[in-house]
């Protein structure tokens, strides 16, 4: 009765795509216009927090290995922390900009977890390739939220952050449990399905 792992990746990819579109829109119009309606300021931080909450059932039900549980659990924690901190910053409950360091922390933790919990090489199958790619994308993309600490109004950095989030969603939507990547599929990966 449990959905396949690839389906969970697609659902998270869709939600992350929405967050990414909101971030692109915010980068285009600027924070002043974006926050003209109060609810919009809370929109993507609340979605990020919700994504963290939804990762807990993933951790509980997808128990292929201990390392999967640690990876999903750590994503849940850092996403809830970063989303919650962003919500409190928008609301004004938190004032120190240092709380924005939770985003680079979330990105580096997510990237490391992706790389650590994928134990097959890049060209083993598409999911292995995408896990490696997602891991390195998260780690390299952490430079955007980190640089935003010093230049919070930079539209280039905000745009880069947004584009990286959209790229992550595209990678998640491309995921398949057993499918070739650039014509490579290890015979150990199992029988290919649609």
């Amino acid at each position, binding site marked *: 009765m449990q959905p396949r792992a690839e389906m969970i990746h697609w659902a998270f990819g869709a939600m992350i795509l929405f967050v990414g579109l909101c971030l692109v829109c915010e980068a285009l119009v600027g924070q002043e*216009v974006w926050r003209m309606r109060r609810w919009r300021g809370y929109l993507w931080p609340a979605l990020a927090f919700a994504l963290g909450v939804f990762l807990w059932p993933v951790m509980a039900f997808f128990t292929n290995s201990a390392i999967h549980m640690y990876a999903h659990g750590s994503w849940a924690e850092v996403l809830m922390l970063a989303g919650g901190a962003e919500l409190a910053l928008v609301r004004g409950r938190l004032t120190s900009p240092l709380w924005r360091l939770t985003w680079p922390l979330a990105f580096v933790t997510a990237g490391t977890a992706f790389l650590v919990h994928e134990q097959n090489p890049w060209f083993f199958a598409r999911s292995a390739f995408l896990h490696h790619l997602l891991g390195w994308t998260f780690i390299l993309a952490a430079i955007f939220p980190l640089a935003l600490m010093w230049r919070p109004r930079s539209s280039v950095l905000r745009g880069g952050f947004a584009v990286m989030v959209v790229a992550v969603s595209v990678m998640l939507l491309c995921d398949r449990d057993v499918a070739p990547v650039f014509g490579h599929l290890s015979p150990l990966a199992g029988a290919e399905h649609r």
Partner: protein
Amino acid sequence: METPVVHDASATRVHDRAIRVYAVSLLGPATAAAGLIWAILQPYRVTLLHPRGQGLWWLVFEPPLFVVVIGALFTVLVARPVLADLEQADATTR
């Protein structure tokens, strides 16, 4: 008297605003169009087109449709109000 420098700055601002409006209004439709193109290129991913014998999860999780829905939701819930606010902000700064 109108100086060319002031005129150029104003023209640049109008041009930038127009680009921003186009970009925001295109975000949602472009996303939905990407999902639609994906569905056309890989119709077997849209199980609603051939629902017989499909399990519940295959009928629920259809990534091309997810992308179309996200694009549509973004257009209606986010992009339209943002465009209205952008117009309002521009009107007040004019």
